Each structure stands twice: as structure tokens, then as C-alpha cells.
């Protein structure tokens, strides 16, 4: 299971944060924000052709002593970020991958709610709980 999932908007402002341990949120916010540097570089259009990433999943962005950080960017430039504890070794890449696509579906549904204004922070309790379930692997 992952320890934190975040959704970052088109203009890199945070839309949603979900931490297994809420006290860590601020700390994770910094980590997630830093990871945007790497996402930006990975998707940099000036990268030499051929190197651009076709997949929405960007793989691991970087790893620290404490945690590993994975990224996923939708065609609409919404960034999903998952933080995994470094001690957690049994979590495999394809599991992360599927977590992301689950989150993506949830997000797409959430955006379809006519009473949600895209770009606003996401406050839906329903959404929060389903994301939590995804990262804690309870679905």
C-alpha cells in the first residue's frame, strides 16, 4: 500500500491530498511539490524527439531514504502522484500502475459531477474515501 496520493492541477496547484497518516500531509506536500520539477522535465516538449513518454504513467520520479515517489499525468495535464514508503518492497511497479489508472477513473467520474467546478480543490468525501481505499489496497 502507498502512504500518500496527491492530485495536482494543470497549473500545478494542489487539488487533492490523501495521506494514510494525516499528520504527515505537510511533509508530503513538500515532497510532491518537488516531484513536479521532475515531471516538468520529463514532459518538457523541448526534449529531443523519440524520448517523449507516450504512456500516461511516468514511473518512479525519485526516491529518498524515506520514500519513493511515482507520477502519472493525464492527457489533460492533471498530475497524479503516489508516495510509497521506501521500506515497502513488495509493492510492484504494475500495482502502482493499476493504482494510478483506478485513481484516474475516479477522477474522471468526479469531474463528471456537474456541481464540481474543474480546477477547484476537490472536497468530495466520497472521492476522498475511494482514493484512500485505492492506495490502502482495500479495493
Amino acid at each position, binding site marked *: 500500500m502507498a502512504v500518500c496520493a496527491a492530485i495536482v492541477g494543470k497549473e500545478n496547484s494542489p487539488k487533492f*491530498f490523501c495521506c494514510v497518516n494525516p499528520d504527515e500531509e505537510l511533509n508530503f506536500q*513538500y515532497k510532491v511539490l518537488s516531484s513536479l520539477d521532475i515531471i516538468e522535465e520529463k514532459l518538457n516538449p523541448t526534449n529531443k524527439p523519440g524520448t517523449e513518454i507516450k504512456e500516461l504513467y511516468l514511473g518512479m520520479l525519485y526516491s529518498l531514504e524515506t520514500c519513493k515517489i511515482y507520477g502519472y499525468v493525464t492527457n489533460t495535464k492533471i498530475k497524479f502522484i503516489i508516495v510509497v514508503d521506501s521500506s515497502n518492497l513488495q509493492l510492484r511497479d504494475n500495482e502502482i500502475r493499476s493504482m494510478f489508472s483506478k485513481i484516474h477513473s475516479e477522477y474522471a467520474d468526479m469531474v463528471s459531477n456537474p456541481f464540481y467546478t474543474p480546477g477547484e480543490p476537490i472536497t468530495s468525501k466520497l472521492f476522498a474515501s475511494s482514493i484512500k481505499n485505492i492506495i490502502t489496497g482495500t479495493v
Partner: protein
Amino acid sequence: MEQRLIQIMQGSPSFYQNYFNLPQELKVKPLALIGFSGLDIVNNAIHKSVWETFINRNEKAAVSYKLISNTHKFPVIKPKRNSYDWYVPKGILKNNWMIKHLNELPAVIVIFYDLDWKDSLWNEKMIECASRVQSLRAALEGRDTRIVVVLIQNVLPLPEDPLAAERAVALCSSCELNSQSLYILPHGPHLLGYTIRLENTFFEFCQNYYYNCAKNVKLHKDHLNKNTHQYLFVRHQFKMAFFNELKQDIQSAHKHYSLSYNNLLDIRIVDTNALEIRTVAGFISYKICKLMFALNLPRDAIAQFKSHIDKFKNRSGFQELAFEHFAWLSKQYEIFGEIFDDAVKQGLPAVQTQHPGIYYQQGAQYAILRKKACQELCSKIIAYPHPDPLEGIERIDFYGQRLWRPGKMSSEPPEPIVEANGIQALQFLENQINHSSIIISLYGLAIAQYKIYKCPRTRRHLVLQMAEECYDSKDFGKALTLLSHMLSDYREEKWWGIISNILEKAIKCAYLTANVQDYIQLALEILSSSINVALEDKKRIYENLNRIFKKQIPYGDPKLPHDVLQNAIILWQPVFNNVEPSVFTLDMTKIISCVESKLRFTKPTFEIDQKVSIDIFIKTTCPFPLVFSDISLKVNSPCTSNELFIDKSEKKSLIFHPNEVKKFVIEFEADPNDINKEIQIEWMNITIGKDSECLVNLKFETQILNVDNSESKCFQKQGKNSDFNTLKSIHNSIVVPRDSKVNLKFEHDLPALVGECYEVYLLIINEELSAIKDLKVEIYTDDGNSETQFSSLPSMQPEKLPINLPVSQTLEKDSRIRTSIFIRAFNPEICNIHVKIIYTLDSDKPVISIKNEMIILPVVQPFEITTTYVSVLMQEIHKFYAGEEFGVMPLIKFLSPWPIHIENTSIEFLPPLKSLETELHSQIAGLSFNKEEISSEFYLALSEKSSDQNMVVGEYIVTWKRENGASVITRVPLHGYHCDWIPLNLKISAPAHGFVRTPVIIQYHLINHSSHLVQLDVGMEASDGFMFSGYRQSSVSVLPNSTKTLQYNLYPLIAGSVALPRILLTIPENSTDGPALRQDQLNQLIERTIPQYIYVIPQIKGNAELPEIIESREMVLSS
């Protein structure tokens, strides 16, 4: 790095400053050492120059030179040990060994001696030289140092010099040198060249020397055994590696360092040797990484470093000295960062995910752990133990050994008291360290790197951590600056969580530095709803704000330690002491504060006579009521710039309750000079407080405010009922002239006709409430380049646009004037004519007013003219023949919706064409025509010359006018056809009609208007309608420029339109010199000149007398 540390650690004993630094001797690049003896660079100019040419060269070989005085003491040589059996090493690396080989023990010694071959005192000098060699040799007894003699000579050597050869041999023998050890250095122009050659030779000697050294070390290896001599394995490999480095063979050097490192790892680590092993490991790993970078193996270097760290990360050694461990780790990272950075400077490409910054950052992290450990372990150590357990630190033999038990082997148990003291001493010293500055400087290095490798956000985070450290070290001022610098970036990306976190820190700093300005600004931001700070904190801050507005010192955060608060209060004391009011102006533009505003002009344009009005919407998201004292706007226009205040007479409360939106309206009169110019709001200013105490101005610039096009913005479509958030700000508007009450009417008969002088009546009626003056009526069009003419006079004298129509300057209320504009268009088109009436009201408030109207004037052709040409037989022709008359028929098709009256028409023929009528007179003059009607006329003409292209027959001139209009003359060119010439012309004389059974005389006139004889066969075909007399078949010849007439007497048999007998003209076969005349031309000639039918009228009863028709006909023809 060193410098920085030193300056940090003032106060603590010097050795502790470098306690964790790598020794210089380890960090320098090892260079082969060459000793120079016999050079007196102080008194001897020549020697000086020689010395300098050796040392001051940029591309030197990897050697360093050292002057060796005669009294020089070389390190004493240890007695050769032939068995290691009983030898137990006291440590791993002697800390004087590297220095010895770097600076004290040359690989080569060069003895310089001034001696020319032809020197008068040759023998004496030779002996002295020899003795010098001897004494040096003695001093270096037992070492392999190579001794070389260089003779400095003044005369250049000759190619073949027996004397030189002989004396050289002599000198060598007396010095006991082989000939490869004697060199001459002629001091002269080529000095540099010689030195280079010498240097290269010396360097070779050095390499041999170090090679041997390494070999010797290798020899010992066999005597060593695994259990007692583990240290020696490490040491020996290290030495070999080092010698190879001196020899500049980094490949082997790297190999041996690695071996050395592995040997080191084999050693069992216990408390007593932990420090030493860790220290040495650090040294060797440093060398390995450095060499790997040099060998361009960055990945291996990084891997080596990682594994190195992994191996020692958890070997923290003594708990009491945990800080030591962290200090070491921090240092390891810092140093690796440095060599990585050096490598990058040498051109190694680094990437975003692998660059020196990462290591500096880790260094900082461990430095923080070090600090924490220190705070835990050392805070209570106040006294330095006595006697000083670190006494004699400089005399310690081995790197990384405890000072209080040097050279003890792990086996023996440590003495408790000594240990305790030693530890205490270290703890005491550690406590003196200014950790923060270490941490901060490491962050500094990391930040610089992250900037290079495109990680703005990571960099920002580091800056915040740096600020954190500044705060910790009570440098609140610096912390505040760092924090507020970062804020703006985080605001851009709206990371409220982080912003809130920063703001809380920042406002603490602002408070602790008594920075009122910042305190207020930060407070206003914290109080906004988007910042999540605990409500009680918001409340405290809110109350503090109000205290400040009253010039009272705010309360500090109770969570802060007491002493810190004390200092803060001392700082605050003077702030409000002054009597005069304190005024602060804050730029709120870039911050999202608890005061939000929307400003908008109520209309996109304002007419000059109405008041310009601006709506101000203000909303506070502060959880507590805010009280403002005034609100003003700065409004600019090209001509004016005013600060406008809200009207406080309207008793609207300036107390704002949470999330309350209030609307204020500011109205003012625009300056008439700003007509058609833009006015805009530059800023809004909200004032808090009284000027008796403390005035705070919140300035909201407008330019930046309205450039937010974030995602959710495009969803702010207003519903029918709009709220504050969806409200759009409008910061500019335009002043326009008042809309005029003058009534303008046009009277004219559309459409205008091309060419005519078209008059439009303008009727101006003053329906204003007062008289008007300075009345101007201006006429202009959109496109300047149409050739349509305008005039204010019926004379239609063209004038340049814009035209001011002649009208009286003033116009009484309800009175009217009329004027006209005359237009002549030359093409059918739609012509847009603008009429602009400008005037000022003749009232107490003279306002300029403008009325714009447009006349859309379609222009059409009055008629179109086409022309057809016919032969004398009235058949249309498409070719003229010189000398043959033909008919010109201009047709006029009338298009004007209005009837057109034709005053006259005529044709002006263009030579060589000419009219065949005595005087031309129009056949339609005086008639009027309506739309769609067509008029036609007939004129007889003839061309005198031939022409091989279409001829312009002449001009058709139509003089016309509308009914009761002015007359217009339209001239249209008449375009004709080619004109051929043939020598022959043919005419017929016949009566208009004949009578049955009454003879008719018909004559055919063959006219030859060439200067040649024309011969023709003439024939008449038989016809049922007639009997006739005359040649049926004949051949005629027509003389040049003469006419031949053939006469036939026809006797009509039947009545009606009867076909005449056809005349046939043919060119005789036997015609010798036939002129330019072809059969087909003849046939055509007949076709167009000879009628095919003639009317035959039934017999008149009674006797018929022959009418005199022929004569009259002749007349016509001859005319």
C-alpha cells in the same frame, strides 16, 4: 570549504576545527618531488632565472620542485626489518607518511653547478662539485633517490668539442656518476627549451624511483600474515596506490586503493578502532571516488560512495559521541559533493536526478542530526576536563586514533576515567560548534546546484529549510527575508497548506524582529479564508493587528520560549515611541489577503455630460470584523490623474463582517479633454486606522489583478444572478462625446447617376434645450482614393475631403438650417458619405457634442451605349473597306430609374473616318426616355484608309439631364473594326421598284480606285423573274482610277419581291498581271453591295410613264 569552517569555529581549539576535515596531504594531487640543490636564487641572478624558468611554467609535467639547502635534513631512514613476525602495527596510516613523500623526500636531486668546459679553474671546481655530490649522497644513504648534476654554462656547447667530451668523462668519474646523470644547461636565449628537456628527463627518473618504491613495498607483503597484520595489508596497498599516484599512473593507483579499501573492510570493528577505521575508510574511499571521476567512471564513483556510506552508516560507535558519527557522514557527503562538482567543472555531464546538490543536501541533513545529537549529549557539558586529555594532539602518530589512547590495540580494555575525560573533552568542544552555519552553508551549496539542474521547487523547499535553520539559530531577520522571498512563488501555484505553514513562521519572525510593516501584511494574509491556521491563532493575530493600529505593542506567540519573547519586546519598545503617527503602505497586489475587491466601470463608455461611475465591491474573508477608515481609487486618463474617495456622507458603514460583500460607488465628471480617450483605474487604496495613531494603506494595483486565467476561471460563467466570485473586474472605460439632440435629415433622389452632379440636401434642426454655437458640418468618406468628386458648390468645383459645409456658426433652439453637398461619381459603386456635426451647447455648461450620420449612396450608370455597323444593304458588318461607305448605329439603353432627357447627341469622327453627311444632327435630341428604353440613330460614314487593327470610329457625345436637373455631357468612344483595301468597288443604280412588264434599267458601276488595270469576266445569271438585255457574258477591263458602267435592261415578268439576276465577277484565268484581288473578295464585294431582290409592282392600268428614278439615285450615289 576549509575557510568557511574555520571562520565558523572561532573560539574552539584549532585542532577541532579540522577534526572532521580531510588532511591537506590527502586532498592535494600528488606530484613527483624533485629537489634542486646549489641554486642561490637570492644573490645569483642567473640561478634565479633558472629556478623561475623551471617553476613558472603553465604546462609543467606532474612534478613539484623544492630547493634543498646544503644543511637540509632528510627524513631518517628506518632500519630495514627482515622479519615481521614480532611486529605489531600500532595503527593503519601514519599521519606523516604522505607528507614525507610529498614534501621531504625527493625522487630526484639535481645539483646545479656553474662550470664551463673552458673554465680556467676547471680542476678545483670539478673537485668541489664532486664533494657536493658526495655529501648529498651521504645524506641520502640507503635511499634510491637519483642524483643528477647540471652544469650551468655561459657559452653555448659546440657540436664537436673534444675538450668537452674529455672533461665530461673526467667529471663523471670524479663524482662517481654515470654519464646519464650529467647535464649541461647553457644559460642563454634557449634556456626554456633546455629546461623542458631536462624536466622530462627528471620526470622519467621520478617515475622509475616511485616504481621502485612501490615494488619495495610489495616485497614486504610476503612477510605479512592475515591475523596480526591486517592493518599492514591496508597500509601497504595504500602506499603502493600513493606511489602510483606520484608516478601519475592512476589506473594502478585506483587498483591498489580499492584493494586497500577491501582489506580495511576485512578488519573487525570494535569500539576502540571504530574511529580509526572509519576515518581511514573515508580517506581511501575519497581517493577511489576521485580517481574514478578522473578515469571518467562517474557511475562507479557514485556506486562506490553509496556502498561506502551503507557500510558505515550504522556504525555510530560510542553513543556519547554520536555527533561525531553524524559529523563524519555529513562530511562524507559534502566532500563527495565537492569532487562530483569538480568533475562537472571538468566537463562531466550531470542530470536532474544525479548531481552534486543531492549530496550537499544529504550533508545538510546529517549536519542537522549532528546538531540534534550535540544538543542531546553536550548541552550539559559546561567544563573542559583537566588534565587536558587531548594534550599532545599534534604528536599523535596515526590518523583517526583516540588521542587519549594512541596506538592501543583493540585487545586491551580502555581505562574508564581517561575514556570519560576524553569523551567529555570532545563533547565540550562539539558544544562550541556553530552547527547552524555549517548546515546553512551546506544548504547554500545544495540550492546553487538545484538551481542549475532545473529544480525550482526543490530549490524553494531547501531555501525554506535554510530559513528554518536561520530561525533555529535565532537569525530571525534572515529567516524572514528568505521566507517572504519564497512566499510569492508558492502563492503562484496556490499551495495553501505550505503557504499557511510559511506564513506562520514568517509572522513569528516579523514579530521577533519587530518588523511592523511585514507583520501587518502577513497578518492580513493569514486572516484570509484560504489560509488554514488555527482559529485561536488567527484571533491572536487579529487582536495584535488592532493593537498595532492603536500603536500598542502586540503580544507574542505564547508557544515561543520566554527569553526569545523578552528580546522581542525590547525590540518593539522604540517602534511606537515617536509622537507623530506611523504610516505604513502595503502592496497587497500580489498577495491573497483577507480583503478581496472587484472594481468595475459601470459602462464600457461614458458620455461626457454624464457622470463616470465605478462600482467597488469589497469582501473580507477575515473571521473577525474589519474596520476601514477610507477607500479611494486612483483613476488615470491621458490628461488627468486623480485620487477619488468614496463619499462618506452616505453613511455607509466601513465595518466589514466575515464574508460580507459591500458595494461602494464612486462618481466623477470626466474632463472634456479626455473625449475618445481611455480612463483606467490604477489602484485602489484601503486605509485602516486613524492618522492620530497609526495609518495603514492597503494598495491594490489593478494591472496584475486581472491576469488570472486559471482553469476554474473559464467556468465562471455568470448565471442570471451573479455573486462576488463570478463578478468580473473592469478597469478601464472610454469617455465619448455626449449623444447629440440635433436632428439631421437628408433629402435626395437615390440613386446618383454616374457623371451627374448629385446634390444632397442636409437639413439640421436644433432640438437641444438651448441654442448651439461653433457649429461645424463636416463631410468625409472612408476611402480617400476613390475619384468621386465632392463640392460644397453647385459649380461642382472639386474640393478636398473633409469638407466643411458653409453653415452659420450658431443655431437657435428649434430653428433649422439647410445646406447641400454636391457629389460627382465616375463609377457605379456604393459610396458611403459621413456627415459629422460638431458644436458646443450655448449654455452655462458648454459641452462639445458630436453627431455622426452616414449617407449610403448607390451610384448607377444612367445608360449604357453600344454601337453596331451596317453595310449599305443594312446588314451588320464586322469589317470596313477603304472607300466603301457604311452605317454607324449607336444604341442607348437607359438604366436610370429616373427619366432621362436627351438634349443632344452627335458623333465626332476620327480621321481617316469621315461622315458622309453634309451636317450631322441628332435624331433623338429633345426626347425623354424611361428605364429599359433603348434609343438608336444612324450615321453614314466611310474610311479613307485601310487599317489592320480595330479603328476608333470617333466619339459619341450625349448631352443629357434628369428632368429639371443640370445637363451632363457623356462622351463614349465608338470602337470599330479592321479596314481592308481592295482595288475594286462596286455600285448599282436601280430604281426603288419596277412594274410588271415595264422595262427597268439597271447599271453596275465597277470603280477601280487602284493605279492598275483591273480585268474581269462579268456574267449575268438567268432569272425566271426577268427577261433582260445586255451582255450575258463579257470580259471588261477597268482603267486605273476610273469607273466602268455596265447597263442592263430588265423586263420584270412577275410581281413581288423578285430575285434580281445575279451578277458574277470572276478573275480571268489568262489574266497575266492580276492586281491584289481574289475571287472570294469579289464574291464578298457583291454580297455587300448588290441587293438580291427588287420589288416589282403589278401593272398600273392606263399608260405608264417612266419615273425619273435613275437620276435621283445617281445623285445620292455621287454625293
